[in-house]
């Protein structure tokens, strides 16, 4: 069975094909679109296979991974040895945590390709790099071997570095180098913690799960090991990797993920990268790259180091809350629309940490759903910033006025996207933010800290404030005569916006299918804690 491998093969084949055959703009973009659509279809099949059995004749039934230590809720697992002496393998898998993100990856890449339909500067390289990006991000979400995971994690940086550095704005070199070095530092620290796990406990865990005392990079060994219990029903994982080992490793991982997420105060690469990046780059950066950090927190932080997470939940909560409040405050002062959206992403990623810190299924599910909904919403927002830069020649909020008159369609999309980001009921992020708060309120037990649970709620007010202020300045009022006549949305933009807004509304009105899938994963976390 190599169903999941298709998710890697298709975009990589597309990357190679575009490089080889995409000499002109029209050929490059059509090839890229074809491969990306195919990949989206495959990922869609994967997503739907979590909701029903329609595709079983095609890909076989979705069965839990039958490990020697019992079945584990991980699906479509592929295992092939890679470098056996070092314990490295090629392991792919998908579950309720990765399925929505795996679907989001080709979807946003496809829409980014449609949105950049007329990119005539080096089109071959541009579209090829987008597909390389799709390949490497998909790899992060489905690989279950630490080494493979790290390879994909690092590979992501390369296309993004070039996307910013070649097609970026005036200050692109500073931004791209800053992006590369900053996130690379995070990755290196993550690599050290991977080695620490490898040396401290991988053989004990491997022994318990697979009955082999070799050291291993196999992530499934750690994930399954964390669920094992002895005859008295006690978890054996703390004896394999003691708490005192877990804590420093957790902190190091958390730093790596926190830079990627990003969380305050490790976020300053993000606004610069976004402001300089081309629209397609921003869409993928905010829609997918940031999700890698959140994915890591849930997969590795909670799934493999549960005892440390249970002790250090307050660390996640503090960083999450600070990100939410601080980034929202900084948003109030932004003049550049794109910078504002970039900072709002930092704030919204704070919800993810807050949800993870609750350690209860509903909060974790909210945090994971936030990854998905924020991916959809922020993609629209960055596309909107791209459209206005293209149409009006500026993204400066004070210069943009009265767009309601000049660009009514644009304004309508802007209002819906802003309200979705505020978390209005009926739109996607209401549920994710609401369930993060439900979990957060439920997960905080001790009395002296009780009043503090209200603090993160403040960010809801500030978020509404900066968005409504921006709407007031940008959409309302009389048009700015200096900008002249502005063109409303073109056909490619309309396609991208319609798909994304449609999904945002769907995910807001019918969260159940997504939650069912996510709960399948989120419900397992409390069992790791005792």
């Amino acid at each position: 069975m190599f169903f999941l491998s298709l998710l890697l093969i298709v975009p990589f084949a597309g990357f190679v094909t575009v490089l080889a055959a995409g000499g002109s703009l029209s050929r490059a973009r059509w090839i890229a679109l074809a491969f990306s659509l195919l990949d989206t279809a495959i990922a869609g099949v994967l997503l739907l296979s979590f909701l029903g059995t329609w595709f079983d004749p095609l890909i076989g039934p979705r069965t839990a991974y039958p490990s020697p230590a019992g079945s584990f809720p991980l699906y479509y697992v592929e295992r092939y040895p890679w470098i056996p002496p070092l314990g490295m393998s090629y392991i792919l898998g998908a579950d309720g945590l990765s399925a929505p993100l795996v679907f989001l990856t080709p979807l946003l890449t496809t829409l980014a390709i449609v949105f950049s339909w007329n990119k005539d500067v080096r089109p071959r390289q541009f579209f090829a790099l987008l597909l390389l990006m799709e390949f490497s991000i998909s790899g992060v979400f489905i690989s279950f071997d630490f080494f493979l995971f790290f390879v994909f994690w690092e590979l992501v940086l390369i296309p993004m570095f070039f996307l910013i550095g070649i097609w970026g704005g005036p200050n692109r070199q500073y931004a791209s180098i800053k992006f590369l070095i900053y996130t690379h530092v995070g990755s290196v620290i993550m690599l050290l913690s991977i080695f620490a796990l490898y040396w401290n406990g991988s053989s004990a865990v491997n022994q318990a799960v697979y009955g082999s005392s070799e050291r291993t990079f196999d992530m499934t060994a750690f994930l399954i090991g964390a669920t094992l219990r002895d005859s008295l029903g006690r978890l054996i994982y703390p004896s394999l990797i003691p708490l005192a080992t877990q804590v420093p490793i957790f902190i190091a991982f958390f730093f790596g993920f926190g830079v990627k997420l990003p969380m305050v105060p490790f976020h300053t690469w993000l606004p610069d990268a976004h402001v300089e990046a081309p629209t397609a780059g921003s869409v993928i950066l905010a829609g997918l790259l940031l999700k890698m950090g959140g994915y890591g927190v849930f997969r590795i932080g909670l799934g493999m180091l549960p005892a440390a997470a249970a002790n250090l939940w307050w660390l996640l909560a503090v960083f999450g809350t600070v990100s939410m409040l601080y980034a929202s405050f900084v948003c109030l002062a932004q003049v550049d629309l794109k910078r504002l959206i970039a900072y709002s992403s930092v704030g919204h990623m704070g919800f993810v940490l807050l949800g993870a810190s609750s350690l209860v299924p509903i909060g974790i599910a909210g945090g994971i759903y936030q990854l998905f909904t924020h991916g959809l919403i922020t993609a629209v927002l960055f596309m909107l910033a791209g459209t206005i830069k293209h149409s009006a020649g500026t993204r400066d909020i004070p210069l943009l006025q009265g767009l309601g008159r000049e660009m009514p369609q644009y304004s309508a999309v802007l209002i819906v996207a802003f309200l979705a980001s505020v978390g209005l009921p009926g739109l996607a992020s209401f549920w994710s933010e609401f369930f993060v708060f439900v979990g957060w309120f439920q997960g905080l037990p001790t009395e002296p800290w009780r009043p503090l649970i209200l603090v993160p709620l403040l960010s809801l007010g500030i978020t509404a404030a900066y968005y409504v202020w921006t709407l007031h300045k940008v959409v309302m009022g009389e048009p700015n005569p200096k900008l002249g006549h502005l063109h409303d949305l073109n056909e490619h933009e309309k396609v991208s916006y319609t798909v994304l807004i449609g999904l945002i509304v769907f995910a807001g009105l019918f969260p159940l299918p997504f939650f069912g899938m996510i709960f399948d994963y989120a419900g397992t976390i409390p069992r790791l804690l005792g």
Partner: protein
Amino acid sequence: MLAVYFLIQVLGQGAIGAPTSTTVPGFTWIPGNPTTTPPEGAIGINLLIDNLSAFMLVLVSFLSLLIAIFSIGYMHEEEGKPRYYAEIALFVAGMLGTVSADNFLQLLIFWEIMGLCSYLLIGFWYHKPEAASAAKKAFLVTRVGDVLFLAGVLIIWNVFHTFRFEEIVARLPALWPSMGPGLIQLIPLLLFGGAVGKSAQFPLHAWLPDAMEGPTTVSALIHAATMVKAGVYLTARSFIFLVPIVPATGEVIAAAVPWKAILIIAGVGAFTAIFAGSMALASYDIKRVLAFSTISQLAYMFLGLGAGAYLMASEGTRPGGELTTAGYSAALYHLTNHAFFKALLFLSAGSVIHAVHTNDMRAMGGLRKPMPWTSRTMLMGALALAGIIPFSGFFSKDDILAVTFETGAENPLFYLMWLAGIATVFMTAFYTFRMWLMTFHGTYRGEGHPHESPRVMTSVLAVLSVFTIGSGLIAFLTNGFGNLIFYGEPHAALPLIAPIVAGNIVEIGLTGLPLALGLAGVGLAWAVYARARAVDWFDRNVVDGIVNAIGRGTVPLGSLSDVFDRKVIDGAVNSISFETVRSSLALRTRQTGQVQNYTWVIVLGIAAILVFAVVLGLLPRVLGRP
């Protein structure tokens, strides 16, 4: 669209006959525990039809139908009509969803949808700077309340593991000890925080007068008759916390009654009533007068609910005491009457504005001749607002004041609130007739030749004036409003005929006196007016100033954060990288080109990494020793 309104209305009317509450299961968002029926902790849309929600459904759909008809004439010349009707329709859906919710989460969801429609409709003329600012202000000020409401809902989930009213009532007797004294007060207060924002009570009242920048039909529908009532509705629903009852025995749980929260609700009501009433004295804008009056009248309803809850709880905790829901019924009675007469007043004002193209009463006057119908219907509305017998406002206002006075025997603070209520009656009569006289009496001071509005508008006004008289008489037809709208079981409702009749005798002088003074003319108006202008100054400069200052204050704070972000945090990042570059420049001198040197460095480097790795591996174990 009109057909849809009719349908909703008929459905609503069919439902009002339902003797007890029924829950219509609807769409499930998040399934709950499947082993229980209904599934415990399920989240979805259900329709709760009890006497309160059925009544609200009829009221809301009927009023929105009338106002939609009125809009045909009023919005005739405007562009963007599809947008207008679409937003109105979404609003009506939001309001109906709010009042038929069987759980707090659904209530919150539709509540926010209403807020969105209010934002969009206030900013209907978005190119006007005042309208744009007003829309922004309305959204943000009510958002403060919404966040408090959300916090309340989250705490409710945390304690009861359900959002449904029914389940909360059933679980409260067992769970209240786990709430502790803090949460007992906090939950109703947070819910009331949402109500304060939505119903524009002090200190979150500043958005409502500004919201008058929207079309007058919107002011009539959203900012007078329906949406602002949602706060009262929510507080009525939170009676399950204000007067916690053991369902089986009907006993009030004395220790779980949030006395302080009830006092705050009633106190905010009493203070806002007199505060907003005095504000209305000074305004020249006909719509702002009505907006302040709306705030003041809503405050009466909160006063009625607060006093009613206090009375009910104190009587219920006495052995053998009977539960009286007079305050609850009186507040909702006033809600009904106010919905009709304030919609009438706003639409009449809209008719006037349609004719003279200004809101400024100084440019009106003498319109009785050219606009006879509008003048008459607005007089009816004014008489009802002023509380003149037999118009509807009289009965319900007297009910509220009577309950407040009665509660004074339980806690003397309510006597003070009663005094505030009486003073507000005086001011209400005064500003209402000041408004009517300035508009229709005397000589015309504006430009052009105003004409009566088209038939489609005046016929709506006529229908509403019939209801303005008629809604007050419901009480007599049904042997007291309390038998129609009550809290808990029907037997708990007392016939309200007695308090009404008694109240008339006690207070008719106090109600009639300010009316007589108001009618007496402009002479006294100027005298009171000089003082009122100071209140207006206070509102514009101090209260509104504080609101604006908070707004402005947060921007520099944001800028400060931005500077901090750029200089300190990013500065630290950059300086780390500069230091790295500098040290690497220094290291460049070590690039000797001699392989032996490099080998040494490589060996040292590997050693360092090994040491680091070993330390990272061992450190935990070292640290781990207790």
